[in-house]
């Protein structure tokens, strides 16, 4: 691509001594050329001023520079960067900083083979946009024929050309795609999907049917009284707990800078953080997962790494800088859906979990996760849409406020994890304090 050629030529111009304090010693950059199309449905209607179909073309990325005096700069890349390089390089230099124990430019020997490009998705962008419109029609029709009056949704397809290069000779150039969609019925419950491949029929049916079932279960409203009870966190809810509490506390920057419940010593001593049968790992090399990649922009190869294995802390999520500070090897970093796997050696089915609920709620959504303090593990969250279950039987939709500590929950013998078909993240059955409206 011409942009990349120009950018590299400009960088090379600044690697010579005559540039004085602007002399560049080392560098890496990652850039994505993106073409995408998105179509929306709002209140049953296609398009409109707020969700009109849209197209976008962009080049976006990041550049990291080590200057000859060892100062560092980091900046975003845009389409105009190569053209304005001489001006930008001066501004980047002015914003350079001293990075004690700053990482060197990195290039690994081997990079994984991982499938990230789907011709079918690419086709949706450039020649067959009908499918995108038809999918939204299908949502509207399926929901409408099941008593759901208001449907919102969207579908989008993107195609990327990615470049990752550095001053140690790394040259990765690959294509990838992304397909995403969401549906929401009666503003009560919805599901989303994102992958590098087009949604397959069974998965599409699953998100439609799951939404219809839950919306209808939630429509009969009851008020519940509080107390300690069984709380079943559906996979999409459990995912938000994993993201907010586990990943935030496992983030290398937070661990190194003492903003995590875990310290570096905890990892060195492999402290037991959750129950022995549970593990959490990063996997960024599964074909067609949205969170898969060949390399990070820094040049660290995609791969697999246990963050927690059999309950014990193994490694924080480490980029090069924090790997160096922690005196540990850099790890792959999570990059979206599908890159995190959480499981127990003793999983139950959804049916088994519901049957054992004498009195409890199935949490379908939560408000306020981003307001919680991840470092304490404490949670106090409102679910406007939970389903009350008594003796294994669904009674109706209710509002509930749940409170507890997720780390205590994940250590409790009572907690169970379970797998649902087509879901990457398990559901969790925990015992929690519930405040109801009665």
């Amino acid at each position, binding site marked *: 691509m011409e942009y990349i050629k120009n950018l590299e030529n400009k960088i090379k111009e600044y690697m010579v001594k005559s540039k004085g304090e602007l002399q560049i010693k080392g560098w890496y950059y990652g850039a994505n050329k993106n073409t995408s199309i998105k179509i929306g449905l709002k209140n049953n209607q296609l398009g409109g001023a707020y969700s*009109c179909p849209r197209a976008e073309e962009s080049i976006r990325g990041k550049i990291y520079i080590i200057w000859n005096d060892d100062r560092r700069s980091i900046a975003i890349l845009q389409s*105009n960067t190569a053209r304005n390089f001489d001006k930008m390089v001066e501004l980047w230099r002015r914003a350079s900083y001293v*990075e004690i124990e700053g990482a060197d430019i990195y290039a690994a020997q081997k990079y994984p083979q991982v499938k990230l490009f789907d011709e079918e998705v690419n086709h949706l962008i450039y020649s067959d946009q009908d499918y995108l419109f038809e999918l939204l029609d299908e949502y509207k029709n399926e929901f409408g024929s099941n008593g759901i009056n208001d449907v919102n949704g969207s579908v989008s397809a993107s195609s990327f050309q990615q470049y990752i290069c550095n001053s140690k000779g790394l040259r990765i150039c690959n294509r990838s795609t992304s397909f995403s969609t969401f549906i929401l019925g009666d503003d009560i419950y919805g599901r989303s999907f994102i992958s590098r491949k087009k949604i397959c029929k069974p998965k599409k049916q699953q998100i439609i049917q799951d939404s219809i079932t839950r919306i209808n279960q939630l429509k009969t409203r009851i008020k519940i009284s509080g107390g300690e009870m069984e709380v079943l966190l559906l996979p999409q809810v459990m995912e938000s707990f994993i993201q907010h509490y586990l990943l935030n506390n496992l983030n290398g920057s937070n661990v190194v800078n003492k903003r995590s419940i875990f310290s570096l010593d905890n990892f060195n001593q492999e402290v037991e953080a959750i129950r022995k049968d549970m593990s959490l790992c990063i996997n960024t090399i599964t074909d067609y997962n949205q969170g898969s990649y060949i390399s990070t922009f820094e040049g660290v190869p995609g791969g697999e790494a246990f963050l927690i294995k059999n309950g014990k802390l193994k490694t924080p999520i480490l980029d090069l800088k924090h790997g160096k500070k922690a005196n540990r090897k850099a790890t792959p970093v999570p990059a979206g859906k599908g890159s995190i796997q959480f499981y127990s050696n003793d999983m139950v089915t959804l049916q088994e979990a519901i049957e054992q609920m004498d009195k409890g709620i199935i949490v379908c959504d939560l408000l306020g996760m981003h307001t919680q303090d991840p470092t304490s593990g404490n949670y106090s969250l409102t679910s406007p849409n939970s389903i009350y279950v008594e003796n294994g039987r669904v009674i109706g939709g209710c509002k509930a406020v749940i409170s507890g500590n997720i780390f205590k929950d994940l250590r409790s013998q009572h907690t169970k994890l379970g797998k649902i078909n087509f879901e990457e993240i398990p559901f969790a059955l925990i015992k929690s304090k519930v405040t109801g409206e009665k």
Partner: protein
Amino acid sequence: MECFNGIIHKALKQGEKLGVYLILRFQKTRAKYITVSNGETDEMSYNEAGGIGIQAFTKDGGCGFASTEKIDEESCLKMVNMAANIAHQVDKRGGKQNKEIFKVPAIKDIINADVKYPFDYLTIEKEEAYLLSLNKEIITQYNSMENSIAIETLYKSIEDQWRIVRSDGTDVTYNIPRTVVSNLITAKGVNTATTRAAISGSDASLLIDTEKRNRLIKRTKNSCKLAINLLKSPKIKGGSYKIVLDYALAKGLAHEAFGHAVESDGMKTSILGNEKGFLKKGEEVASPIVTIIDESIEGDYAYQPYSANGVKRDRVKIVDKGILVGALADVFSAEEAGVSITGAGRAESYRHIPLPRMSNIRIEVENSIPTTRDIEDITPEELYKILVESNLAAEDEEVLYLVGYKGGQVKPSQGEFVFNCSGIYMLKEGCSLYQPAIFSGKVLSALKSITAAIGPLKLDAQGTCGKAGQSVPSSGGAPYFILLEANKDVIIGGE
């Protein structure tokens, strides 16, 4: 932004040729970011970015959108073609049409926000030095044998320039300068706790002016003390209580409970809309001493004088003495919601489609009890004394005081909202501290519980508001403290 005149002329001509009405949104951004962690610079960057967003409308109201970050003639014309093509497709496929933009009068204006210190007044190295000294000054005071404190200082200084041009001759240029310094404090001892302190505005005066700098230091020290005290504090029992909120939490209440529920694009499903999708004007929604206003204020973090559709932003009274009177409306949904256009359309960037949003939202309460002290100096014990002396609380009454806004969320269709605090005090002689817990309320009744307020209005509670995948700066406030009677529809989540 004048340099784009040539591109604009050609784009509008192209729109005419393709039979579409255009809204062109040019954005140029300069931004400085600095992160200091525990006395060391963690990251620092200077960036320039920008692009064009193009919204096209056919004569029948079909709409398409395209964007590019290349501000040149070729890219712009390519995107005009794309947006026009999509708009025609929408018509063909029976998509929703909207012709409201054709009715809006044209306007020409240029607004340059008045700032004390321009964007380039301080070099980024100077700003880094200020932040390092601030971070170090505080951190050394709070580390002890028993507990450790980590402080991450984030500095963000942004200057957005916008030019909005429409096919009807509208041509509006404005800039939005904004700056924030925030400190994220993590205390570690037997447990771990995190709190936050921030100060925001439009320029580097946050670092330079002694008064503002001292205010941030005072706020950060209070947050450090709170984080340390939280390490040993228990959880509160869940339920309904008489509650005092600080002004930042009161802003959260106004923002989540009312601001989002009166945004015109959601009126069809909002609890504050009737069966026809019109705002329930005239409905009693708050106590008669309560008024809620949204207003773009120059110098404020969430300032925006014009909408992203090129319509002047109005001051909007949403609730007047307890009665619902107004909504935050943009061109496209004001009529559907039965309200006037208030220029509320905001977009995160040129890549996004504008949506009706808040700017600075505040709760005003009549007859607020005066105090001459700064809010940062009023301790929970002193607050308790004021309440008792003013006959707002009895000596043996259970009153919770919630401090430090940590964000919120709302489901306007169900009328449910939440927001969270950094800590909870049980007000009494020798107040006790509890862990933060969610404030969960119902739009239609929460504001009816407000019975009194203490102190003058304070409007600098800063935040970021997320909606439909777009984040925009938000702010607001209230009198220093507002008092809510116990209400079964307001639950404090706890043990």
